[in-house]
């Protein structure tokens, strides 16, 4: 071995030592990320009263969520919520995740507390423990893995309600400040949180040509006050192109705006119950006005069940040419109720 080869070997050994330091230094973390069962070990010392058993099922293009424990999900009789998780500060989500069809991902980008980024592969079960943020408010989670053309619409909210009572104005200001920081600095807070509007008792939201309120999924977070008589005016622009998930094809291949689906306002209660406040069949191009008295800590508005979209121009879709269909939610959002 000549001198030059000795230099090379010394250099390679130096690199190996550096890598060994990184491997050993990060090893403990390896056992609690990536959806392995041991991710739940952090919950061992928490009392059951603080842990919500959360089942997440991903399917193209929604998350179905079932909660049990301190929160028991119940959406008008069904144990499943669509794209919505309800929790309280200080609690933990004991998450069990599966896929009903293709590979997906659960991505919770709240860098202030933690990041959860797990693949959900059909045939496997994914586990994780998500610490609910200490701050009340909505925090976005989303599908981080492409799973088909409506992938960008698979976005949900972890709605952190006060353990009792209503949203505190100071907490809402903190949330807004954290959102602004997240939107200007890397690896800080949740950059996906949507625009907050209010406090007010009069709101108008209009869908764009993609069937979204204010160009975001979910739509803006509206803030109102306890006891206010709230008027929410929702206007659905008539869908007219393949850009819009509300523009659907029949079996014969004729497109038309989706009919027969419900638009409404629904109360979200501390225990995980989602109850009907008011709803109407969808109508396009004219105001759909909802009036209610703000008594629940939060509400969800819009179309809170997925729309089954089928792309089938001229009836040509088949297994040789291709098919494109799935469950899509776009026009929805939350209302937070500020206490006195």
């Amino acid at each position, binding site marked *: 071995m000549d001198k*030059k*080869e000795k230099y*090379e070997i010394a*250099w*390679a050994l130096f*690199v190996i030592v550096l*890598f060994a330091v*990184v*491997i050993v230094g990060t090893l403990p*973390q*390896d056992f609690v*990320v*990536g*959806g*392995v069962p*041991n991710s739940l070990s952090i919950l061992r010392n928490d009392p059951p009263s603080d842990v919500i058993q959360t089942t997440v099922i991903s399917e*193209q293009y929604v998350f179905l969520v079932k909660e049990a424990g301190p929160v028991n999900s119940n959406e008008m009789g069904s144990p499943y919520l669509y794209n919505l998780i309800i929790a309280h500060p200080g609690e933990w989500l004991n998450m069990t995740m599966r896929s009903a069809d*293709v*590979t997906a991902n659960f991505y919770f980008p709240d*860098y202030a507390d933690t*990041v959860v980024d*797990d*693949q959900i*592969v*059909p*045939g*496997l*079960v994914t*586990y994780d423990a998500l610490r609910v943020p200490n701050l009340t408010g909505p925090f976005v989670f*989303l599908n981080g*893995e*492409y*799973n*088909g*053309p*409506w*992938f960008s619409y698979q976005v949900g909210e972890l709605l952190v309600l006060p353990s009792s009572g209503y949203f505190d104005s100071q907490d809402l200001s903190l949330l807004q400040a954290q959102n602004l920081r*997240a*939107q*200007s*600095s890397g*690896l800080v807070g949740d*950059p*996906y949180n*949507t625009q907050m509007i209010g406090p007010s008792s009069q709101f108008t939201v209009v869908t764009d040509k993609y069937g979204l309120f204010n*160009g*975001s999924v979910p739509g803006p977070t509206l803030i109102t006050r306890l006891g206010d008589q709230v008027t929410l005016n929702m206007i659905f622009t008539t869908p007219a192109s*393949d*850009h819009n998930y509300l523009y659907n094809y029949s079996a014969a291949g004729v497109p038309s705006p989706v009919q027969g689906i419900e638009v409404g306002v629904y109360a979200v209660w501390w225990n995980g119950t989602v109850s009907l406040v008011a709803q109407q069949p969808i109508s396009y191009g004219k105001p759909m006005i909802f009036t209610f008295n703000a008594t629940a800590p939060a509400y969800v508005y819009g179309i809170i069940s997925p729309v089954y979209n089928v*792309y089938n*121009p*001229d009836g*040509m879709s088949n*297994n*040789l*040419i*291709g*098919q*494109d*269909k799935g469950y899509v939610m776009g026009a929805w959002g939350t209302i937070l109720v500020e206490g006195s």
Partner: protein
Amino acid sequence: MGIDMGFKEFVTALFQLDKDWTTRIVMGMLVMGVIWGLLGVIDSLMVRLQETIWGVSGVLVFTPQEYFASITLHAERDLFGFAQQVIYAIFIFFTIKLLNLQPRAKWLLNVSFILINISMMFMEGPVVLVPNFNDNYFSATIWYYISPIGLPNYSNYVVSPLFFIGWLLLDAFTYMAGIWIVYHYYIASRQLKEKLPVPLVFFLMDTLLFMIGYSGVTAANVWDLLSFYNVIPMNPIANQIAFWIFGHAVVYMAWLPAIGALYLLIPTLANRPLFSDRMGRISALLYLIFSNNVPIHHLYMVNLPVTIKVLQEVLTYAVVIPSMMTFLNLWATVKGAQVKFNVITAFTVTAFTGAIAAGVTGISNATIAFDAIVHNTDWVVSHFHAMILLSIVPAAMAVLYFMIPMMTGRQWFSSKMAWFHWLGYVIGSVLFVVGYELQGLEGLIRRAEIYPRIPSLVDAEVLSTVGALIAQVATLVWFLNLVLTLVKGRTARLEGLSVGQLINTVASSLGWEGESINISTLFSKIMIKKAISSMWALGILGSIIIVVSMFPLAMSGNTYNDLPWIWITLLTLGIVLIAYPILRGAKSL
């Protein structure tokens, strides 16, 4: 086209139809590669427009199908139609020219050439003409590592089976053209009196890497097509692991030619021998051993046994070792040398420094704890685009800047256009990569068609798009320069020059006292039969073991059992049996 040149002369000049058959096929591959490359660039431009216009004005220019199909086709066309085809063309050309061989098996190469170009058409998916024109059935499965997307009975989104058939044709190309190249190295090895030069070692090693790596995707392709027609059930995680055997290795398949080119160009331009010839060869061996058995580092965030993930982290770091050895070797070679700055030098330096800059982000991704934060974000997109744009493409350009005159006998039409190309390309690519890194650090997930329209993200998206446009304009100038060179470039007397002398002439740079390898090129079938040594036989045994390794993987269920360990052991054993004996048999070590 020159005014004084007819269409027939133009086609002859473009495809070099007046040259020997190897040069004709190589030129055909280069021309088709550039065509697919430009189409892929248009796809990428569609992606950039969609994301940027959404950020700036809240408008989506394309339908979801068009947008996601653009991402798929950008990957397929640029990575395979362009990069793989051009890489194979370069290997074929240098294998014949540098080894001074009489090429054989013309039909094998011709069929391969046809297959890869048909495969690109199949991957595009069907375009419906009647009753109404519809191109929205384009394949939109990215480059499909997310099994079982696209399969009927598993996925709501069903892709045309033409997509999977296209992949099988690409697999066929890889093996047929790969066998052609290895066969010629085999012929050469029987007559070589000395070791292969290090750049040629890298070209041979990379061809082997292609063929080992494609074993995974070929298994995945066959499985997908059988599941598409309900012949056998799909196990998505096993299919994904099989795909990623290829999916990670493809990074090295594309990058190692750049390393081979640097091993050729840096000593040449510095007019010095390589700092350590032996370590260059050992680096090649290590690359081959450690590039094909790390698929699970793309699946860190999947519920797989942690021990096997940690093993993959260690093996992934292991592949950095030959890179670090290479960086020291090349840096020490050029240290203190007087190097003239010309376009070839500029692209060579860009490829070297770009590999370091881009490699650093790769090391962080390879760390499980770090991946837990950036997985699926645009940070990852930034990393592999940095490798491609700042290292692989510049090295390819450095090679093409001397290879085109070498093939055509014509000097470049315009040096000013070449300089504009380098400057615009580098500035544009850096802006593009930095924009994507910023998006990733903001937490933006990749392929986000609809994303928060906040200033920091919009600025980063615009930065990437401006960079892409600058780089693309610069590349178009290169393309124009290329066409003008083919039809109007000054005739250069380059016949009989060694590669080093040719680079010197083309670049008006340093001379090179290179060795030319002259070997006998006529072999009888009897000689070839006798030449099959135990080393090459071990390589064939290794190939069989790799094929066998797919079965325990396919049967591994949720992977919490012994079968994944049997798979990774067999796979690694197969790779080692191919790597050392064949490189040794080909006089590379």
